[in-house]
């Protein structure tokens, strides 16, 4: 909302500089985004002049040499405007004046004639968009059309009739403060925060109705959808002279960011900017029978709006029309059919109240926002309509020579009762933690336009109609008195009483941090990738797409197809990050992300927030498991002058996965897996407590190719599984010191296709309780083993908690191990 300072000061002038006022408003009322300036930066050198004579320039057809009275002196000014004429009262810039944009005016020689100043156009003063001709403050032969025009004597500073310099407060008005979409509403805020006097409301006086007959003789209104149109008022004006608006009106509209069109339309815009209530003027002669109908559109009905576009409507769109068809989309934009034009002589002025939700819906649907819809969608109170009618009537009479026909047509459904919330004594202090005396609170509310009554120590405050939809409750009153009192000045800083609990992380959160730190310490850089990906992602990962189970969750209204689906795995966006870095000069990358995947279906037996089990009565809409995922491209550990690099292959990644698991104390195992994005011979499924909890492997060459990578490996595991099985927090002391362990190594010869995991589990099975651990530390293949056989070396640790083991006991276990190995075709190698 652009609020020209001069306009604001007409209603409340705190005698503060614009920046001081802006700072105060920001702290107590409404944020001021910036202060801008229109027109000349200073008033010096701008005066009113009267053109005494005009002669053709001797050497230029299009220039005139004018003698202009600028008060006590006559100066020669060369002017290029075609409309300059003797007798006009004009705006003059004298040499030394600074023009908008900062250029300083000097004496200029134009084709041999010295021009001692400049006669100004609207555009040059930034008070209008007419650059072709000069402004006529008064035409060559006319009397004043506006009170005060008598003060346009030559030599009068221009700043007495036009706002020079003009600063504009650009307010960032919150959507609850529809009152501040009008200058008078802002003035009331200024009054409240500064206590500077507030002028009477501009609607306090109505125009005199001098027209013939009554409005009903000219027009009628039928509202078919009263629930969407709580009020529709109309007044009729005759003998309207449509033409350009006077300079002061144009100047205000320009400063407020509104292009002047003609005096009738300008008046409607002016009143909207003043009161926040939009208005619409119809050419009454273009409304057949003067009969206006407010109705819902038919599905697929079309109409052409003022901007020249043909719009297709639906049954929830409300139209203002006549018996021949629609002439305006209610509350949003008028149509061309009944537009006010030069030829218009009779005007029907509509001021209506619309259903805000409906206006919002329609304007979104049509992609059509206007200054009117922006106000209507915030829901206006029906009382505002009459205010706007009163102001507009006076201005139409003053600036368009119109005659107001008696009677206001008023189709009103129901006017909501005014809110009268009670502010209990002490309630503000209870909520804010700062005391505000009742008298003070009453004063603040009165300044804000509330009707305040005292009941004991309580205040009962009748809410002004333009705050009706913002303030209805005690708590709303507390906000009003609190902000005007000033949080910045008066609000103490205290801390709440005890929370009744110790602040701490949950076990899961503690372990999640631990997991993230572990992976980082294992050499992976932490990244944050977008959860939104493109529909091609599953295909590039060879997951397949479409309606398969596990298909991504889609956004109905994405900004771009690139970010239209939620990721189902962290792998794709990690690969994106890897490719980015390799393309930007990195030779190798090792990245990890701790974050969620998003699936329509699924769940985890491990439970917890990391398995998407969130607080709240209604279940989550999707399954959002938290995962830890790593990828490595190139060396995981870089080479040096001394050592070879360690390639990020399957086993390097498995080492990292084991490091992560070990750091959390979580046992996990890897079995051959089948993820479509993995190398089929180098793919593992991660098992925790027998449950699938992720994948590990080298990426499929086709996936690598899709990301321009030569080779990559990675893993992705569910945090819930790692956390659930971790002994963290429940560990108890195990006596590993009193009785020594027996360490033995064994070599097991098995067929090539027997996995290390099977060998190990056979060994553990045979070893029984006394065998505390069995770890593979070597793999050997050689001629003496025979074709298709391999030898695995395992380190064994036997121990009992209550005694030192005897050689016989260990030998017995070895025999059992040999037997267990026999089942899988393995033998112990001596």
């Amino acid at each position, binding site marked *: 909302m652009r609020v020209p300072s001069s306009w604001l000061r007409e209603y409340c002038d705190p005698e503060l500089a614009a920046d001081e006022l802006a700072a105060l408003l920001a702290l*107590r009322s*409404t944020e001021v985004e910036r202060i801008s300036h229109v027109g000349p930066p200073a008033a010096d050198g701008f005066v009113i002049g009267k053109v005494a004579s005009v002669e053709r320039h001797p050497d230029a057809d299009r220039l005139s040499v004018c003698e202009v009275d600028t008060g006590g002196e006559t100066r020669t000014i060369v002017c290029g405007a075609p409309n300059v004429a003797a007798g006009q009262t004009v705006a003059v810039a004298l040499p030394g004046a600074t023009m908008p944009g900062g250029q300083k005016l000097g004496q200029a020689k134009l084709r041999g004639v010295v021009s001692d100043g400049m006669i100004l156009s609207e555009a040059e003063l930034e008070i209008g968009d007419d650059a072709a001709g000069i402004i006529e403050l008064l035409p060559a032969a006319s009397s004043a059309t506006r009170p005060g025009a008598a003060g346009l004597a030559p030599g009068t500073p221009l700043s007495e009739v036009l706002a020079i310099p003009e600063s504009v407060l650009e307010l960032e008005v919150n*959507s609850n403060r529809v009152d501040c979409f009008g200058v008078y509403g802002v003035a009331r805020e200024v009054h409240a925060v500064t206590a500077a006097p507030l002028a009477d409301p501009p609607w306090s006086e109505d125009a005199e109705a001098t027209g013939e007959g009554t409005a009903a003789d000219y027009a009628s209104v039928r509202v078919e959808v009263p629930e*969407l149109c709580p009020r529709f008022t109309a007044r009729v004006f005759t003998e309207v002279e449509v033409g350009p608006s006077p300079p002061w009106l144009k100047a205000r509209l320009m400063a407020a960011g509104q292009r002047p069109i003609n005096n009738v339309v300008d008046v409607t815009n002016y009143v909207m900017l003043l009161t926040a209530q939009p208005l619409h003027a119809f050419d009454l002669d273009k409304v057949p029978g003067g009969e206006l109908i407010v109705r819902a559109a038919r599905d697929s009905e079309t109409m052409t709006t003022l901007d020249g576009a043909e719009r297709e409507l639906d049954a*929830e769109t409300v139209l203002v029309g006549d018996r021949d068809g629609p002439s305006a989309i209610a509350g949003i934009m008028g149509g061309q059919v009944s537009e006010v034009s030069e030829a218009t002589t009779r005007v029907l002025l509509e001021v209506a109240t619309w259903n*805000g*939700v*409906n206006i*919002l*819906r329609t304007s*979104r649907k049509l992609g059509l926002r206007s200054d009117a819809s922006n106000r209507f969608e915030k*829901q206006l109170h029906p009382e505002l309509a009459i205010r706007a009618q009163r102001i507009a009537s006076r201005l139409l009479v003053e600036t368009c020579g119109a005659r107001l026909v008696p009677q206001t047509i008023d189709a009103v459904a129901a006017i909501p009762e005014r809110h009268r919330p009670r502010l209990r004594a002490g309630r503000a202090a*209870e909520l*804010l*933690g700062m005391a505000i005396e009742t008298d003070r609170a009453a004063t603040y509310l009165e300044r804000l336009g509330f009707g305040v009554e005292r009941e004991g120590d309580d205040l009962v405050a009748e809410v002004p109609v333009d705050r009706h939809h913002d303030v209805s*409750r005690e708590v709303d009153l507390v*906000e009003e008195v*609190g902000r005007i009192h000033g*949080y*910045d000045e008066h*609000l103490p800083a*205290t*801390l*709440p*009483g005890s*929370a009744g*609990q110790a*602040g701490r992380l*949950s076990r899961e*959160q503690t372990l999640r941090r631990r997991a993230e730190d572990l992976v*980082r310490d294992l050499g992976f*850089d*932490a*990244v*944050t*990738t977008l*959860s*939104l990906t493109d529909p091609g992602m599953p295909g590039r990962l060879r997951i397949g797409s479409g309606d398969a189970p596990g298909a991504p*969750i*889609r*956004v*109905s*209204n994405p*900004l771009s197809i690139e*970010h239209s689906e939620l990721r189902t795995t962290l792998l794709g966006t990690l690969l994106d990050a890897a490719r980015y870095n390799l393309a*930007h000069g990195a030779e190798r990358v*090792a*990245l990890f992300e701790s974050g969620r995947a998003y699936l*329509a279906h699924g769940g985890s037996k491990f439970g917890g927030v990391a398995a998407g089990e*969130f*607080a709240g009565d*209604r279940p*989550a*809409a*999707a399954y*959002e498991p938290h995962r830890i995922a790593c990828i490595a491209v190139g060396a995981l*550990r870089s080479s*040096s*002058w001394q*050592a070879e690099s360690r390639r990020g292959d399957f086993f390097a990644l498995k080492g990292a996965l084991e490091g992560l698991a070990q750091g959390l104390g979580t046992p996990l195992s890897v079995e051959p897996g089948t993820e479509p994005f993995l190398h089929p011979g180098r793919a593992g499924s991660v098992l925790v407590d027998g449950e699938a909890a992720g994948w590990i492997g080298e990426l499929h060459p086709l996936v690598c190719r899709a990301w321009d990578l030569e080779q990559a490996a990675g893993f992705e595991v569910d945090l819930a599984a790692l956390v659930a099985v971790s002994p963290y927090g429940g560990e108890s002391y195990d006596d590993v010191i009193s009785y020594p362990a027996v360490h033995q190594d064994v070599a097991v010869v098995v067929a090539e296709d027997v996995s290390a995991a099977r060998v190990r589990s056979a060994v553990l099975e045979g070893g029984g309780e006394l065998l505390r651990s069995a770890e593979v530390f070597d793999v050997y293949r050689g001629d003496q083993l025979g074709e298709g056989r391999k030898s695995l070396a395992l380190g064994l640790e036997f121990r009992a908690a209550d005694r030192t083991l005897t050689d016989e006991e260990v030998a017995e276990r070895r025999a059992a191990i040999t037997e267990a190995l026999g089942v899988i075709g393995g033998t112990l190698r001596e």
Partner: protein
Amino acid sequence: MVERIEELRRGAEAEISSASDLDALETLRVRHLGRKAELTMILRGIRDLPAEERGRAGAAGNEARQALEALLDARRAALEAADLDEHLASDAIDVTLPGSPSLRPGARNLLARTLREIEDVFIGLGYRVMEGPEVELDFYNFTALNHPPGHPARMAQDTFYVDPATLRSDLRIDADPATPGREAENAGGGDSAPRLGTQGAAAAGLLPPGPEDVVLRTHTSPMQVRAMEAQQPPIFIVVPGRCYRSDPFDATHSPMFHQIEGLAVGEGITLADLKGTLDEFARAIFGPERQTRFRPGFFPFTEPSVEVDVSCFACGGSGRLPGGPRDPLCKGTGWIEILGSGMVDPNVFGFVRERGYDADRVRGFAFGMGIERIAMLKHGVPDLRKFFENDVRVLGQFS
């Protein structure tokens, strides 16, 4: 005899002292103390000497032998030390060559780090950390936060809606025609503005949507009502996480970003408590001298609502840098906007009244801030997109 012993001793001492290596020293040991050495012979012949000479000669001989042995040991130690020094000197390396890399720890993520820092501040103040779903019901994201269907504030947050066809079939939740929160306070002064039925509106591509729709959460605030459904007051929580809005990428916007929400509800909590809490936060994150400033704001789920500024840490709040130029960080105002907050609106409590949240008995405050913004301000990151580029040269700057 004694004279001969002394003579032998002096000779041997001179030779041992000047022995230049361990081999020479061994030769000298054999020569002077070996089985055939003269001194050994003399000592062996002592018993044959006359009784009056035996004592003196024996003492002198033994003394000489011990002295020579001690001298030999000392000389050996000296020669060995010299040998070792020489050996070590030849074993030197170029200490300026780079070290052999151990596993290089990965980079920390600035966003994750900032988030932990903020979490830890509030943990210290007695808060717990909760997390909620990102694919969220409109009910929690809007309706229960006092954004009734059609409320313009719903439109202010450009929301991503989820295509219901891609969700579980059982998920659709019937629209709740009553919005219980509206009556939480001032039951008499009901809002008489007519409202449209909106069931299925978003699915049909017509906004505004209703509480049955599913969105990507536009803020971390939906966890407020979820948490209060699950826990009676008092409740002190922070809720970090990803949020989504259909804002195109630019220097300060991204369709995905991170927020952290705070919610404190109990008896006797005031707006002044919010100020004290945020002052503590500002000092912990931005430095000990910082303070906050409240300005009026608007959020449908808080009343009063405030925008919170922190005093600028670049200029110290003066708006001017040393030497006089205007501080670009705070644009010369001395203050930087960091978050929005306020007192929990009674209408929000209306949705959890049966859980012990009676607006007449408990009060609370809530706040929400963007993690990216905090990290950008604190570390001079010029562009929000940098957080999602994941350039390892940038990642490595934060440890």
